[in-house]
Protein backbone atom coordinates (compact mmCIF):
# COMPACT_ATOMS: atom_id res chain seq x y z
CA UNK A 1 0.00 0.00 0.00
CA UNK A 2 1.27 3.44 -0.91
CA UNK A 3 1.80 6.22 1.59
CA UNK A 4 0.53 9.43 0.02
CA UNK A 5 1.61 12.86 1.21
CA UNK A 6 -1.57 14.94 1.16
CA UNK A 7 -0.51 18.62 0.96
CA UNK A 8 -3.14 19.43 3.60
CA UNK A 9 -3.01 16.44 5.98
CA UNK A 10 0.44 14.89 5.58
CA UNK A 11 1.22 11.23 4.98
CA UNK A 12 -1.81 8.94 4.87
CA UNK A 13 -2.44 5.42 3.49
CA UNK A 14 -3.57 4.98 -0.09
CA UNK A 15 -7.00 3.60 0.86
CA UNK A 16 -8.03 7.07 2.04
CA UNK A 17 -7.55 8.43 -1.47
CA UNK A 18 -9.18 8.22 -4.86
CA UNK A 19 -7.17 8.72 -8.03
CA UNK A 20 -8.88 11.06 -10.48
CA UNK A 21 -6.77 10.27 -13.52
CA UNK A 22 -4.38 12.44 -15.48
CA UNK A 23 -4.04 16.09 -14.42
CA UNK A 24 -3.80 19.26 -16.50
CA UNK A 25 -6.36 18.24 -19.14
CA UNK A 26 -8.31 21.34 -20.13
CA UNK A 27 -11.78 20.95 -21.60
CA UNK A 28 -11.89 22.67 -25.01
CA UNK A 29 -13.71 25.97 -24.61
CA UNK A 30 -15.66 25.67 -27.87
CA UNK A 31 -16.48 21.96 -28.33
CA UNK A 32 -18.87 22.59 -31.20
CA UNK A 33 -16.20 24.30 -33.25
CA UNK A 34 -13.29 21.89 -32.92
CA UNK A 35 -12.57 18.85 -35.09
CA UNK A 36 -13.90 15.43 -34.03
CA UNK A 37 -10.34 14.22 -33.66
CA UNK A 38 -9.55 16.98 -31.17
CA UNK A 39 -12.69 16.28 -29.16
CA UNK A 40 -11.88 12.56 -29.22
CA UNK A 41 -8.39 13.37 -28.05
CA UNK A 42 -9.77 15.35 -25.09
CA UNK A 43 -12.21 12.60 -24.15
CA UNK A 44 -10.22 9.45 -24.70
CA UNK A 45 -6.48 9.96 -25.21
CA UNK A 46 -4.21 10.05 -22.19
CA UNK A 47 -0.44 10.26 -21.81
CA UNK A 48 -0.13 6.86 -20.07
CA UNK A 49 3.63 7.31 -19.56
CA UNK A 50 6.09 4.72 -18.31
CA UNK A 51 7.76 7.22 -16.01
CA UNK A 52 6.59 10.34 -14.19
CA UNK A 53 2.84 10.94 -14.44
CA UNK A 54 0.90 14.03 -13.33
CA UNK A 55 -2.44 13.02 -11.85
CA UNK A 56 -5.30 14.25 -9.69
CA UNK A 57 -6.00 12.73 -6.29
CA UNK A 58 -8.88 13.20 -3.87
CA UNK A 59 -8.32 12.74 -0.14
CA UNK A 60 -11.90 11.52 0.21
CA UNK A 61 -11.51 9.85 3.61
CA UNK A 62 -9.55 12.77 5.03
CA UNK A 63 -9.75 16.45 4.30
CA UNK A 64 -11.97 15.86 1.27
CA UNK A 65 -9.82 18.06 -0.95
CA UNK A 66 -8.36 17.49 -4.39
CA UNK A 67 -4.68 17.95 -5.16
CA UNK A 68 -2.24 17.07 -7.92
CA UNK A 69 0.65 14.65 -7.69
CA UNK A 70 3.62 13.51 -9.71
CA UNK A 71 4.12 9.76 -9.45
CA UNK A 72 6.57 7.39 -11.11
CA UNK A 73 4.50 4.69 -12.83
CA UNK A 74 7.42 2.22 -12.80
CA UNK A 75 8.05 2.26 -9.04
CA UNK A 76 4.67 3.76 -8.00
CA UNK A 77 6.67 6.21 -5.82
CA UNK A 78 5.24 9.70 -5.37
CA UNK A 79 7.69 12.33 -6.60
CA UNK A 80 5.77 15.45 -5.51
CA UNK A 81 2.31 16.68 -4.55
CA UNK A 82 1.00 20.15 -5.30
CA UNK A 83 -2.19 22.16 -5.20
CA UNK A 84 -4.88 22.13 -7.87
CA UNK A 85 -4.36 25.00 -10.25
CA UNK A 86 -0.62 25.14 -9.65
CA UNK A 87 1.62 24.37 -12.65
CA UNK A 88 3.35 21.03 -12.86
CA UNK A 89 6.59 21.22 -10.83
CA UNK A 90 9.77 20.89 -12.81
CA UNK A 91 11.23 17.80 -11.15
CA UNK A 92 12.48 14.47 -12.38
CA UNK A 93 12.51 14.65 -16.18
CA UNK A 94 10.32 12.11 -17.95
CA UNK A 95 11.83 8.69 -18.06
CA UNK A 96 13.86 8.83 -21.27
CA UNK A 97 12.97 5.26 -22.23
CA UNK A 98 9.25 5.98 -22.13
Amino acid at each position, binding site marked *: *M*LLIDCPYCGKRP*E*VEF*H*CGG*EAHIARPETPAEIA*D*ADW*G*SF*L*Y*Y*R*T*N*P*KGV*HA*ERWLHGHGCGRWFNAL*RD*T*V*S*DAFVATYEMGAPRPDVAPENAK*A
Partner: protein
Amino acid sequence: MRRFSLKSLLQEASSGHQGWERQWRAPEPKKEYDVIVVGGGGHGLATAYYLATVHGVTNVAVLEKGWIGGGNTGRNTTIVRSNYLFDESAGLYEHAMKLWEGLSQELNYNVMFSQRGVLMLAHNHHDVISFKRHVYANRLNGIDNEWLSPEECKAYCPPLSISPELRYPVLGGALQRRGGTARHDAVAWGYARGADARGVDIIQNCEVLGLKRHPDGSVAGVETSRGTIGAKRVGVVAAGHTGVVMGRFGLRMPVESVPLQALVSEPVKPVFPCVVMSNAVHAYISQSDKGELVIGAGTDQYVSYSQQGGIQIINHTLDAICELFPQFGRMRMLRSWGGIVDVTPDRSPILGKTPIEGLFVNCGWGTGGFKATPGSGHVFAHTLATGEPHKINAPFSLDRFRTGRLIDEAAAAAVAH
Protein backbone atom coordinates in the same frame (compact mmCIF):
# COMPACT_ATOMS: atom_id res chain seq x y z
CA MET B 1 7.78 -30.35 -36.69
CA ARG B 2 7.51 -33.76 -35.13
CA ARG B 3 3.87 -34.44 -34.35
CA PHE B 4 2.78 -35.58 -30.94
CA SER B 5 0.90 -38.87 -31.13
CA LEU B 6 0.51 -42.10 -29.20
CA LYS B 7 3.10 -43.63 -31.53
CA SER B 8 5.70 -40.89 -31.01
CA LEU B 9 5.04 -40.94 -27.26
CA LEU B 10 5.58 -44.74 -27.09
CA GLN B 11 8.73 -44.47 -29.21
CA GLU B 12 10.16 -41.82 -26.92
CA ALA B 13 9.08 -43.64 -23.79
CA SER B 14 11.06 -46.66 -24.92
CA SER B 15 14.19 -44.60 -25.63
CA GLY B 16 14.32 -42.40 -22.54
CA HIS B 17 12.72 -39.33 -24.15
CA GLN B 18 16.05 -38.34 -25.70
CA GLY B 19 14.70 -37.83 -29.21
CA TRP B 20 12.35 -34.88 -28.74
CA GLU B 21 13.38 -31.87 -30.77
CA ARG B 22 13.25 -28.24 -29.63
CA GLN B 23 9.77 -26.91 -30.20
CA TRP B 24 10.87 -23.71 -31.87
CA ARG B 25 14.17 -22.37 -33.17
CA ALA B 26 16.10 -19.37 -31.86
CA PRO B 27 16.92 -17.73 -35.21
CA GLU B 28 18.94 -14.61 -35.89
CA PRO B 29 16.73 -11.88 -37.35
CA LYS B 30 16.75 -11.64 -41.16
CA LYS B 31 17.26 -8.34 -42.97
CA GLU B 32 13.62 -8.07 -43.95
CA TYR B 33 10.24 -9.72 -43.42
CA ASP B 34 6.87 -9.37 -45.08
CA VAL B 35 5.25 -8.94 -41.67
CA ILE B 36 6.69 -8.20 -38.24
CA VAL B 37 4.55 -8.85 -35.18
CA VAL B 38 5.70 -6.84 -32.15
CA GLY B 39 4.95 -8.85 -29.03
CA GLY B 40 5.30 -12.58 -28.44
CA GLY B 41 2.32 -13.21 -26.21
CA GLY B 42 -0.60 -15.44 -27.07
CA HIS B 43 -2.22 -12.89 -29.39
CA GLY B 44 1.00 -12.13 -31.28
CA LEU B 45 1.94 -15.79 -31.69
CA ALA B 46 -1.59 -16.67 -32.78
CA THR B 47 -1.42 -13.86 -35.32
CA ALA B 48 1.82 -15.27 -36.74
CA TYR B 49 0.39 -18.79 -36.77
CA TYR B 50 -2.73 -17.82 -38.72
CA LEU B 51 -0.71 -15.63 -41.09
CA ALA B 52 1.22 -18.78 -42.01
CA THR B 53 -1.60 -21.31 -42.00
CA VAL B 54 -4.58 -19.33 -43.31
CA HIS B 55 -2.91 -16.74 -45.53
CA GLY B 56 0.31 -18.48 -46.58
CA VAL B 57 2.39 -15.54 -45.32
CA THR B 58 5.40 -17.28 -43.80
CA ASN B 59 8.11 -14.62 -44.08
CA VAL B 60 7.09 -13.39 -40.65
CA ALA B 61 8.97 -12.49 -37.47
CA VAL B 62 7.57 -12.24 -33.95
CA LEU B 63 9.74 -9.86 -31.92
CA GLU B 64 9.51 -10.30 -28.16
CA LYS B 65 11.21 -8.03 -25.62
CA GLY B 66 11.47 -10.78 -23.03
CA TRP B 67 10.48 -14.39 -23.49
CA ILE B 68 7.35 -15.64 -25.23
CA GLY B 69 4.27 -15.94 -23.06
CA GLY B 70 6.06 -14.18 -20.19
CA GLY B 71 3.67 -11.26 -19.93
CA ASN B 72 -0.08 -11.35 -19.48
CA THR B 73 -0.35 -14.67 -21.35
CA GLY B 74 1.28 -16.36 -18.37
CA ARG B 75 -0.39 -14.18 -15.74
CA ASN B 76 -4.11 -14.40 -16.40
CA THR B 77 -6.70 -16.60 -14.72
CA THR B 78 -7.27 -18.62 -17.95
CA ILE B 79 -11.02 -18.07 -18.16
CA VAL B 80 -12.65 -18.57 -21.56
CA ARG B 81 -16.21 -17.44 -22.32
CA SER B 82 -18.07 -15.59 -25.05
CA ASN B 83 -21.24 -14.28 -23.37
CA TYR B 84 -20.75 -10.61 -24.18
CA LEU B 85 -23.70 -8.26 -24.56
CA PHE B 86 -23.12 -6.33 -27.76
CA ASP B 87 -23.32 -7.92 -31.20
CA GLU B 88 -19.82 -6.80 -32.15
CA SER B 89 -18.29 -8.30 -29.00
CA ALA B 90 -20.38 -11.46 -29.28
CA GLY B 91 -19.11 -11.91 -32.84
CA LEU B 92 -15.48 -11.51 -31.83
CA TYR B 93 -15.48 -13.63 -28.67
CA GLU B 94 -17.68 -16.35 -30.15
CA HIS B 95 -15.30 -16.53 -33.12
CA ALA B 96 -12.58 -17.21 -30.56
CA MET B 97 -14.73 -19.76 -28.72
CA LYS B 98 -15.27 -21.77 -31.89
CA LEU B 99 -11.52 -21.82 -32.50
CA TRP B 100 -10.89 -22.84 -28.87
CA GLU B 101 -13.15 -25.85 -29.35
CA GLY B 102 -10.82 -27.34 -31.95
CA LEU B 103 -7.55 -25.79 -30.87
CA SER B 104 -5.73 -28.77 -29.35
CA GLN B 105 -6.34 -30.79 -32.53
CA GLU B 106 -5.48 -27.84 -34.79
CA LEU B 107 -2.16 -27.21 -33.03
CA ASN B 108 -1.39 -30.87 -32.26
CA TYR B 109 -0.72 -29.49 -28.79
CA ASN B 110 -2.79 -30.08 -25.69
CA VAL B 111 -3.97 -26.67 -24.51
CA MET B 112 -6.08 -28.41 -21.85
CA PHE B 113 -9.22 -26.57 -22.91
CA SER B 114 -11.85 -27.61 -20.41
CA GLN B 115 -15.46 -26.53 -20.99
CA ARG B 116 -16.42 -26.83 -17.35
CA GLY B 117 -18.86 -23.91 -17.49
CA VAL B 118 -18.61 -20.28 -16.39
CA LEU B 119 -21.20 -19.22 -13.82
CA MET B 120 -21.70 -15.48 -13.30
CA LEU B 121 -23.50 -14.73 -10.05
CA ALA B 122 -26.19 -12.12 -9.55
CA HIS B 123 -26.37 -10.54 -6.09
CA ASN B 124 -28.96 -7.82 -6.50
CA HIS B 125 -32.00 -6.91 -8.54
CA HIS B 126 -29.96 -4.95 -11.04
CA ASP B 127 -27.63 -7.92 -11.61
CA VAL B 128 -30.62 -10.18 -12.21
CA ILE B 129 -32.13 -7.89 -14.83
CA SER B 130 -28.79 -7.21 -16.49
CA PHE B 131 -27.74 -10.88 -16.63
CA LYS B 132 -31.12 -11.98 -18.00
CA ARG B 133 -30.70 -9.35 -20.70
CA HIS B 134 -27.27 -10.86 -21.44
CA VAL B 135 -28.81 -14.34 -21.62
CA TYR B 136 -31.42 -13.22 -24.16
CA ALA B 137 -28.96 -11.14 -26.20
CA ASN B 138 -26.51 -14.05 -26.31
CA ARG B 139 -29.19 -16.49 -27.46
CA LEU B 140 -30.17 -14.14 -30.28
CA ASN B 141 -26.53 -14.31 -31.34
CA GLY B 142 -26.46 -18.10 -31.15
CA ILE B 143 -24.35 -18.16 -28.00
CA ASP B 144 -25.31 -20.50 -25.18
CA ASN B 145 -26.15 -18.83 -21.91
CA GLU B 146 -28.84 -19.78 -19.44
CA TRP B 147 -30.37 -18.46 -16.25
CA LEU B 148 -30.09 -20.57 -13.08
CA SER B 149 -32.01 -20.14 -9.84
CA PRO B 150 -29.93 -20.02 -6.62
CA GLU B 151 -30.70 -23.73 -6.02
CA GLU B 152 -29.59 -24.60 -9.56
CA CYS B 153 -26.41 -22.57 -9.01
CA LYS B 154 -25.75 -24.58 -5.85
CA ALA B 155 -26.36 -27.84 -7.72
CA TYR B 156 -23.94 -26.82 -10.46
CA CYS B 157 -21.32 -25.54 -8.03
CA PRO B 158 -21.73 -27.34 -4.66
CA PRO B 159 -19.11 -25.31 -2.73
CA LEU B 160 -21.15 -22.14 -3.31
CA SER B 161 -23.00 -20.68 -0.35
CA ILE B 162 -26.51 -19.52 -1.26
CA SER B 163 -27.44 -18.62 2.30
CA PRO B 164 -29.81 -15.64 2.41
CA GLU B 165 -27.75 -14.42 5.37
CA LEU B 166 -24.84 -13.40 3.13
CA ARG B 167 -24.00 -9.71 2.83
CA TYR B 168 -24.51 -10.15 -0.92
CA PRO B 169 -26.86 -13.16 -1.27
CA VAL B 170 -26.89 -15.16 -4.49
CA LEU B 171 -30.13 -14.38 -6.36
CA GLY B 172 -29.27 -16.53 -9.36
CA GLY B 173 -26.65 -16.85 -12.04
CA ALA B 174 -25.98 -16.87 -15.76
CA LEU B 175 -24.26 -20.05 -16.88
CA GLN B 176 -22.35 -20.49 -20.13
CA ARG B 177 -21.72 -24.22 -20.26
CA ARG B 178 -19.32 -23.95 -23.19
CA GLY B 179 -17.13 -21.58 -21.18
CA GLY B 180 -14.24 -22.86 -19.10
CA THR B 181 -10.49 -22.70 -18.80
CA ALA B 182 -7.38 -23.51 -20.81
CA ARG B 183 -3.71 -23.87 -19.97
CA HIS B 184 -2.33 -20.42 -20.79
CA ASP B 185 1.35 -21.39 -21.24
CA ALA B 186 0.40 -24.21 -23.58
CA VAL B 187 -1.52 -21.76 -25.75
CA ALA B 188 1.59 -19.64 -26.28
CA TRP B 189 3.81 -22.69 -26.77
CA GLY B 190 1.40 -24.45 -29.12
CA TYR B 191 1.06 -21.40 -31.36
CA ALA B 192 4.83 -20.79 -31.23
CA ARG B 193 5.58 -24.37 -32.23
CA GLY B 194 3.02 -24.32 -35.04
CA ALA B 195 4.17 -20.96 -36.38
CA ASP B 196 7.86 -21.89 -36.18
CA ALA B 197 7.24 -25.13 -38.08
CA ARG B 198 5.80 -23.10 -40.95
CA GLY B 199 8.80 -20.77 -41.16
CA VAL B 200 7.93 -17.95 -38.75
CA ASP B 201 10.98 -16.60 -36.90
CA ILE B 202 10.34 -16.16 -33.19
CA ILE B 203 12.98 -13.75 -31.93
CA GLN B 204 13.16 -13.34 -28.17
CA ASN B 205 15.12 -10.75 -26.17
CA CYS B 206 14.53 -8.29 -28.98
CA GLU B 207 13.01 -4.99 -27.91
CA VAL B 208 11.47 -2.70 -30.52
CA LEU B 209 12.85 0.82 -30.11
CA GLY B 210 11.49 2.72 -33.07
CA LEU B 211 9.82 2.66 -36.47
CA LYS B 212 11.55 3.06 -39.86
CA ARG B 213 9.44 4.80 -42.46
CA HIS B 214 9.65 5.39 -46.20
CA PRO B 215 9.75 8.98 -47.48
CA ASP B 216 5.98 8.72 -48.15
CA GLY B 217 5.45 7.95 -44.47
CA SER B 218 4.64 4.25 -44.83
CA VAL B 219 6.27 1.54 -42.77
CA ALA B 220 9.77 0.39 -43.81
CA GLY B 221 10.72 -1.62 -40.74
CA VAL B 222 11.56 -1.39 -37.07
CA GLU B 223 14.59 -0.41 -35.02
CA THR B 224 15.31 -3.02 -32.39
CA SER B 225 17.83 -3.83 -29.69
CA ARG B 226 19.22 -6.34 -32.23
CA GLY B 227 19.48 -3.91 -35.14
CA THR B 228 17.22 -2.61 -37.86
CA ILE B 229 14.80 -5.08 -39.42
CA GLY B 230 12.86 -4.28 -42.57
CA ALA B 231 9.15 -5.04 -42.93
CA LYS B 232 6.33 -4.31 -45.33
CA ARG B 233 3.78 -4.40 -42.54
CA VAL B 234 4.08 -4.19 -38.76
CA GLY B 235 1.48 -5.30 -36.25
CA VAL B 236 1.86 -4.13 -32.66
CA VAL B 237 0.44 -6.62 -30.13
CA ALA B 238 2.15 -5.41 -26.99
CA ALA B 239 -0.68 -5.43 -24.41
CA GLY B 240 0.16 -3.19 -21.44
CA HIS B 241 3.18 -1.76 -23.25
CA THR B 242 1.31 -0.87 -26.44
CA GLY B 243 1.29 2.76 -25.39
CA VAL B 244 5.05 2.67 -24.84
CA VAL B 245 5.78 1.05 -28.22
CA MET B 246 3.37 3.30 -30.11
CA GLY B 247 4.85 6.30 -28.30
CA ARG B 248 8.22 5.35 -29.77
CA PHE B 249 6.51 5.38 -33.15
CA GLY B 250 5.14 8.87 -32.48
CA LEU B 251 1.52 7.83 -31.93
CA ARG B 252 -0.74 8.32 -28.93
CA MET B 253 -3.21 5.58 -28.03
CA PRO B 254 -6.52 5.74 -26.16
CA VAL B 255 -5.38 3.25 -23.55
CA GLU B 256 -4.20 3.44 -19.97
CA SER B 257 -2.03 0.75 -18.40
CA VAL B 258 -2.98 -0.54 -14.97
CA PRO B 259 -1.95 -3.53 -12.83
CA LEU B 260 -4.33 -6.47 -12.61
CA GLN B 261 -3.68 -9.06 -9.92
CA ALA B 262 -4.28 -12.75 -9.52
CA LEU B 263 -3.34 -15.31 -6.91
CA VAL B 264 -3.32 -19.04 -6.34
CA SER B 265 -3.80 -21.13 -3.22
CA GLU B 266 -1.95 -24.20 -2.09
CA PRO B 267 -2.98 -27.18 -4.24
CA VAL B 268 -5.77 -29.37 -2.93
CA LYS B 269 -7.84 -32.29 -4.22
CA PRO B 270 -10.59 -31.48 -6.73
CA VAL B 271 -13.12 -29.34 -4.86
CA PHE B 272 -14.28 -26.83 -7.43
CA PRO B 273 -15.98 -28.04 -10.60
CA CYS B 274 -16.46 -24.89 -12.68
CA VAL B 275 -15.55 -21.22 -12.99
CA VAL B 276 -17.48 -18.77 -10.84
CA MET B 277 -17.41 -15.04 -11.43
CA SER B 278 -19.07 -12.38 -9.37
CA ASN B 279 -18.98 -8.86 -10.71
CA ALA B 280 -20.78 -7.32 -7.76
CA VAL B 281 -18.37 -8.55 -5.08
CA HIS B 282 -15.54 -8.75 -7.60
CA ALA B 283 -14.15 -12.24 -7.48
CA TYR B 284 -13.40 -14.93 -9.97
CA ILE B 285 -12.36 -18.41 -9.01
CA SER B 286 -11.64 -21.78 -10.56
CA GLN B 287 -9.40 -24.73 -9.74
CA SER B 288 -6.45 -25.61 -11.90
CA ASP B 289 -5.65 -29.21 -12.84
CA LYS B 290 -2.71 -28.97 -10.43
CA GLY B 291 -5.26 -28.35 -7.66
CA GLU B 292 -4.60 -24.70 -6.92
CA LEU B 293 -7.54 -22.38 -6.55
CA VAL B 294 -6.94 -19.69 -9.18
CA ILE B 295 -8.38 -16.37 -8.08
CA GLY B 296 -8.64 -13.19 -10.10
CA ALA B 297 -8.69 -9.82 -8.38
CA GLY B 298 -9.29 -6.31 -9.65
CA THR B 299 -7.19 -3.52 -11.09
CA ASP B 300 -5.53 -0.73 -9.21
CA GLN B 301 -7.03 2.71 -9.66
CA TYR B 302 -3.98 4.39 -11.19
CA VAL B 303 -1.67 4.04 -14.19
CA SER B 304 1.24 1.76 -13.36
CA TYR B 305 3.81 -0.47 -15.03
CA SER B 306 4.98 -2.01 -11.76
CA GLN B 307 3.50 -5.51 -12.26
CA GLN B 308 2.46 -5.67 -8.63
CA GLY B 309 -0.54 -3.75 -7.32
CA GLY B 310 -1.94 -2.94 -3.90
CA ILE B 311 -2.54 -5.48 -1.15
CA GLN B 312 -5.98 -3.99 -0.47
CA ILE B 313 -7.10 -5.15 -3.92
CA ILE B 314 -6.41 -8.82 -3.26
CA ASN B 315 -7.73 -8.55 0.30
CA HIS B 316 -11.01 -7.25 -1.09
CA THR B 317 -11.25 -10.20 -3.48
CA LEU B 318 -10.39 -12.74 -0.77
CA ASP B 319 -13.06 -11.24 1.50
CA ALA B 320 -15.59 -11.93 -1.24
CA ILE B 321 -14.27 -15.45 -1.90
CA CYS B 322 -14.45 -16.35 1.79
CA GLU B 323 -18.02 -15.10 2.02
CA LEU B 324 -19.23 -17.03 -1.04
CA PHE B 325 -17.20 -20.14 -0.24
CA PRO B 326 -16.83 -20.24 3.55
CA GLN B 327 -14.88 -23.53 3.45
CA PHE B 328 -11.99 -21.74 1.71
CA GLY B 329 -11.51 -19.44 4.70
CA ARG B 330 -8.57 -21.47 6.01
CA MET B 331 -6.84 -22.07 2.67
CA ARG B 332 -3.41 -20.54 2.38
CA MET B 333 -2.46 -18.50 -0.65
CA LEU B 334 0.79 -19.53 -2.28
CA ARG B 335 1.56 -16.78 -4.74
CA SER B 336 0.14 -13.53 -6.04
CA TRP B 337 1.30 -11.46 -8.98
CA GLY B 338 0.31 -8.65 -11.27
CA GLY B 339 0.24 -8.04 -14.98
CA ILE B 340 -0.04 -4.74 -16.79
CA VAL B 341 -3.21 -4.47 -18.83
CA ASP B 342 -4.09 -1.78 -21.35
CA VAL B 343 -7.59 -0.53 -20.77
CA THR B 344 -9.59 1.40 -23.36
CA PRO B 345 -12.31 3.94 -22.51
CA ASP B 346 -15.10 1.53 -23.64
CA ARG B 347 -13.36 -1.64 -22.36
CA SER B 348 -13.36 -3.12 -25.86
CA PRO B 349 -10.19 -3.92 -27.78
CA ILE B 350 -8.67 -2.04 -30.69
CA LEU B 351 -7.91 -4.22 -33.73
CA GLY B 352 -7.05 -2.60 -37.00
CA LYS B 353 -5.34 0.20 -38.86
CA THR B 354 -3.42 3.17 -37.49
CA PRO B 355 -2.77 6.58 -39.04
CA ILE B 356 0.55 5.21 -40.39
CA GLU B 357 0.29 3.20 -43.63
CA GLY B 358 1.45 -0.37 -43.02
CA LEU B 359 1.23 -0.12 -39.23
CA PHE B 360 -1.54 -2.06 -37.49
CA VAL B 361 -2.44 -2.49 -33.85
CA ASN B 362 -4.08 -5.17 -31.73
CA CYS B 363 -4.44 -3.89 -28.17
CA GLY B 364 -6.81 -2.68 -25.50
CA TRP B 365 -7.89 -6.13 -24.36
CA GLY B 366 -7.80 -4.78 -20.84
CA THR B 367 -8.56 -7.32 -18.17
CA GLY B 368 -10.03 -10.02 -20.41
CA GLY B 369 -7.86 -10.78 -23.41
CA PHE B 370 -6.89 -14.40 -22.83
CA LYS B 371 -10.29 -15.78 -23.85
CA ALA B 372 -10.01 -14.04 -27.22
CA THR B 373 -6.51 -15.29 -28.09
CA PRO B 374 -7.37 -17.56 -31.06
CA GLY B 375 -10.02 -15.24 -32.51
CA SER B 376 -7.89 -12.16 -32.04
CA GLY B 377 -4.95 -13.78 -33.82
CA HIS B 378 -7.19 -15.10 -36.58
CA VAL B 379 -8.79 -11.77 -37.51
CA PHE B 380 -5.60 -9.77 -36.95
CA ALA B 381 -3.75 -12.12 -39.31
CA HIS B 382 -6.44 -11.36 -41.89
CA THR B 383 -5.92 -7.63 -41.28
CA LEU B 384 -2.14 -7.89 -41.66
CA ALA B 385 -2.32 -10.15 -44.71
CA THR B 386 -4.89 -8.12 -46.64
CA GLY B 387 -4.33 -4.64 -45.26
CA GLU B 388 -8.01 -4.40 -44.36
CA PRO B 389 -9.91 -5.55 -41.25
CA HIS B 390 -11.94 -8.75 -41.25
CA LYS B 391 -15.66 -8.03 -40.88
CA ILE B 392 -15.49 -9.38 -37.33
CA ASN B 393 -12.88 -6.84 -36.21
CA ALA B 394 -13.94 -3.92 -38.40
CA PRO B 395 -16.07 -2.36 -35.61
CA PHE B 396 -13.06 -2.45 -33.26
CA SER B 397 -11.22 0.30 -35.12
CA LEU B 398 -8.98 2.90 -33.53
CA ASP B 399 -11.09 5.45 -35.40
CA ARG B 400 -14.09 4.79 -33.14
CA PHE B 401 -12.55 7.14 -30.59
CA ARG B 402 -12.99 9.90 -33.18
CA THR B 403 -16.38 8.90 -34.58
CA GLY B 404 -17.88 8.02 -31.22
CA ARG B 405 -19.08 4.56 -32.33
CA LEU B 406 -17.96 2.95 -29.08
CA ILE B 407 -18.64 -0.68 -28.14
CA ASP B 408 -19.44 0.05 -24.56
CA GLU B 409 -18.80 -3.20 -22.76
CA ALA B 410 -17.69 -1.03 -19.82
CA ALA B 411 -21.30 -0.02 -19.29
CA ALA B 412 -22.56 -3.53 -20.10
CA ALA B 413 -20.41 -5.32 -17.55
CA ALA B 414 -19.94 -2.45 -15.10
CA VAL B 415 -16.59 -3.91 -14.06
CA ALA B 416 -13.38 -5.24 -15.43
CA HIS B 417 -14.16 -8.38 -17.37
